[in-house]
């Protein structure tokens, strides 16, 4: 709520309720894993999206399926920022925090902004829960909450009360208390209940009592605010002025899945996914498994190696082949990725990064698999790496990954992360005919007397070899993981041939740079004292920070990389135009080391390795610091 433009309007209000216009607001729902916080947050987001706000979300859930109720590791949270303008991040500090129990309060209070609104469910603040949350004293009873606008609500009692007449047990009643809370939030932000009511009716179509209970609780929460006047102010956030079009809210894994289906259609190739479940990538498998009417084959393999190998087999057979995983799984696939690389078969490897090393922080986000993606294979094995920048960008980046794979006959790594995978934002749905045309012909049966088919004869421009799929008469040939002779593809141990092939494979990837659009530099493209460069999911926080810096009049510019390998042709020149270059990344400086080596330019890392994304404030502070020193 930092950049609010508030007006007062006590016109028709029954009590002294004021109306305030806000430009943006950050709300965080926090509770036990069993409290339905992800659902509650999603509903608030969707309703706001339908209303026309721009928004950005950040779910945050524990590694355990259901850690013991009431404990600190069991807390699940969902943050959403809604705004009447174009925003890029789910916000730094929440303006409003809903805490369903002591553990949720404990883990989330620290980030609530000073003077923020705090809604607490007092019924859960009993001795047992306080102990589980490792509170020595009841924070509601000492001065812990000073400086916040605390709204204490007996959520459990009130919800039960509102559902008294329904023939359900108390446990079922209690399960509705998140809807009661949501109703309250809807009231505060002057939102319609209709989208959520419609959604509940659909979701519980087969259990009408449950639908009714949830809807009743929702309305009760809303009415509770109306009647009791617990809030003195209602807020309004106007719709954002977005580009005209049809919008939907989408998270990164969904956008990626749709992008792959679109690529399948636009290339005319059936999509084949070989995958082994792993957080935070599994939902791509789940989503694509539902698209059988698009001819999508999903194969849940026995492990990551089988998953990528099956994808390689499918690619060999002429499918658009995909494998999805996260860090430890990418490590396992590395040997096989090199098989695709040397046999020059198209393949998309989607790696949704999470906190490492080893099992690490499986449900948290990080960008620390970059060097693994670039270099984690034996021998010289350069392959394209692309990193989407926002949840919705996963759609376009998927198409671009497929373009590179098909056009150049090469495995491509798509480097998403947990934040993109689960975070959502409004997405302007594109027209199908505007999507890139990805058709590429398979090698065709040669004329009867033509013996000249050469599986490693290359296209002059792309250096791609022909895609000669089994079943084509006359193209019978053998490929494999041993080094092959240039042009013929026969096994070759010849020293010079090996060197030539190493160069050809690298050059094929390097040439992709020629097909990339020029980079866009925001700020002063002609150069200046400071450039902030980012890649992948830091786009939002960096853009937000640079916008804030511009508002302060700071001379900072910004450029964002989507293609990590090959690097864009114009990058070197751009870097050279700036005195200082700052690179925020959610690792210890991985891309910085690559760029430094490539361009011999001193690039300063702003590192964050905490399993959560940058805030704008962190980056803004670094910008200020580097402009001063």
């Amino acid at each position, binding site marked *: 709520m930092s950049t609010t433009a508030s007006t007062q309007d006590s016109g028709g209000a029954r009590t002294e309720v004021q109306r305030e216009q806000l430009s943006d607001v950050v709300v965080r729902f926090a509770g036990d894993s069993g409290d339905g916080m992800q659902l509650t947050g999603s509903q608030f987001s*969707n309703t706001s*999206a*339908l209303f*026309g706000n721009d928004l950005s979300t950040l779910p945050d859930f524990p590694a355990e399926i259901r850690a013991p109720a009431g404990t600190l590791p069991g807390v699940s949270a969902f943050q959403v920022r809604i705004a009447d303008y174009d925003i890029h991040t789910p916000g730094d500090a929440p303006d409003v925090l809903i805490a369903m129990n002591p553990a949720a309060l404990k883990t989330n209070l620290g980030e609530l902004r000073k003077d923020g609104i705090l809604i607490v469910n007092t019924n859960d603040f009993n001795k047992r829960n306080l102990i589980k949350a490792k509170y020595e004293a009841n924070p509601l009873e000492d001065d812990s909450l000073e400086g916040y606008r605390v709204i204490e609500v007996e959520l459990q009692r009130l919800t039960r009360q509102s559902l008294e007449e329904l023939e359900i047990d108390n446990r079922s009643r209690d399960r509705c208390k998140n809807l009661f809370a949501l109703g309250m939030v809807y009231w505060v932000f002057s939102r319609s209940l209709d*989208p959520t009511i419609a959604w509940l009716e659909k979701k519980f179509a087969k259990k009408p009592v449950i639908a009714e209970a949830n809807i009743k609780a929702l309305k009760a929460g809303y009415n509770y605010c109306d009647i009791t006047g617990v809030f003195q102010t209602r807020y309004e956030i106007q719709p954002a002025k977005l*580009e*005209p*079009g*049809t*919008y*939907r*809210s989408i998270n990164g894994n969904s956008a990626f899945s*749709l992008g792959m*289906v*679109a690529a399948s*259609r636009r290339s005319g190739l*059936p999509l*084949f996914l*070989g995958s082994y479940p792993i957080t935070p990538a599994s939902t791509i498998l789940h989503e694509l498994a539902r698209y*059988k*009417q*698009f*001819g999508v*084959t999903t*194969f849940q*393999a*026995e492990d990551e*190696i*089988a998953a990528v*190998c*099956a994808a*390689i*087999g*499918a690619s*060999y*057979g*002429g*499918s658009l*082949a995909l494998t999805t995983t996260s860090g430890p799984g990418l490590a396992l696939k590395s040997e*096989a990725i090199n*098989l695709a690389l040397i*046999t020059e078969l198209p393949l998309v490897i989607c790696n949704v990064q999470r906190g490492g090393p080893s099992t690490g922080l499986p449900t948290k986000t990080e960008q620390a698999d970059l060097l693994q993606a670039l270099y984690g294979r034996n021998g010289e094995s350069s392959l394209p790496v692309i990193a989407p920048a926002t949840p919705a960008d996963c759609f376009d980046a998927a198409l671009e990954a497929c373009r590179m794979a098909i056009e150049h006959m090469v495995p491509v790594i798509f480097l998403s992360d947990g934040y993109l995978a689960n975070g959502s934002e409004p997405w*302007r*749905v*594109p027209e*199908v005919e505007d999507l890139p045309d990805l058709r590429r012909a398979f090698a065709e049966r040669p004329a009867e007397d033509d013996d000249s088919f050469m599986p490693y004869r290359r296209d002059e421009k792309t250096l791609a070899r022909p895609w000669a799929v*089994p*079943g*084509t*008469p*006359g*193209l*019978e*040939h*053998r*490929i*494999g*993981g*041993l080094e092959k002779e240039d042009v013929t593809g*026969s096994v070759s141990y010849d020293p010079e041939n090996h060197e030539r092939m190493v160069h050809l494979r690298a050059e094929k990837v390097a040439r992709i740079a020629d097909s990339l659009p020029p980079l866009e530099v925001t700020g002063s493209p002609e150069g200046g004292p400071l450039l902030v460069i980012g890649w992948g999911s830091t786009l939002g926080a960096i853009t937000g920070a640079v916008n804030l810096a511009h508002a302060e009049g700071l001379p900072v510019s910004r450029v964002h990389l989507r293609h990590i390998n090959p690097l864009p042709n114009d990058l070197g020149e751009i870097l050279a135009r700036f005195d200082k270059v700052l690179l925020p990344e959610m690792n210890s400086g991985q891309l910085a080391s690559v760029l430094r080596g490539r361009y011999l330019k001193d690039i300063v890392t702003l590192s964050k390795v905490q399993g959560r994304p940058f805030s704008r404030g962190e980056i803004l502070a670094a910008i200020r610091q580097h402009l001063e020193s």
Partner: protein
Amino acid sequence: MSEQATLTRKDFQSDQDVRWCPGCGDYAILKAVQSVFPELGIPREKFVIVSGIGCSSRFPYYMDTYGFHTIHGRAPAVATGLKVSRPDLEVWVVTGDGDALSIGGNHLIHTLRRNVGVKILLFNNRIYGLTKGQYSPTSEIGKKTGSTPLGSVDAPFNPLALALGAGASFVARSVDIYQKHLVETLRQAAAHKGSAFVEIYQNCNIFNDAAFAYMTGKAERADANLYLEHGKPLTFGADGDRGIRLSGVGLEVVRVGENGVTEDDLLVWDAHAPNAALASLLAHATPPAFPTPVGLFRAAAQPSFESQVVGQIESTIEKQGSGSLESLLRAGETWTVD
């Protein structure tokens, strides 16, 4: 367009020099495969040989079909992706005892469990050939090799018992130099709809010479082999008077005419039994107590994995029509900004 009418063995010989050691059993297997393929009435371009790494896995280079020499142990996984996405192809996997049972053991058992319609030929020479002679998971206990100078201490896998334990629908065994038998076994494998697992005893004359001499030797052959033929009683021996009968839950070697045993007491071989119990028993019949059974252990009709995967896709499209990308992109709750 299809050339099957006129295919001969020559059509399946590639122009590559065969690079196995002189005398290697792999040659005989190559010959057998090249004899069977032209018989099958399938166009040459429909065949794909997928292999892992090992001497045996060089196989695809010598076949003038499509071929994929993949990485160590992973051929069944690559073949699964290929077959599921292209059920029209004839996918054959060639693998070794190290490739299939050591590094690739998991892919093998999962492929068999799923009943993916690929034929798996396991060249079992009971040694790692290509890496110069370390013991393998099928080497006998006490095997002295570079990596086990005092002899190996771990019991080998029984590949057929393992395959049956994994739920394989087709299991057979043959021997490199039993050319006619091998050809017939390959034919049966070709005819099977799901996964066909064929163990082929193969002599590595460099690192494990004569590993199968106990049964393939001229003197031994008649008494040391038990040829499984569906519907026929299990007899063996130079005079054909010895046989196998059930005894409790086990098997027993008997001589017809001795102790009142008649031919009727012998077990009549049923390769198509719905459950794998009998095949398992036979798989556990090992020398010296028993002759080595060769031939078809099990061939059970079960739906193939790929047919069902494709079936789900086809029936969805049949019911819902082919998906519209436009609608998919606009699915869920949308709103419009003008």
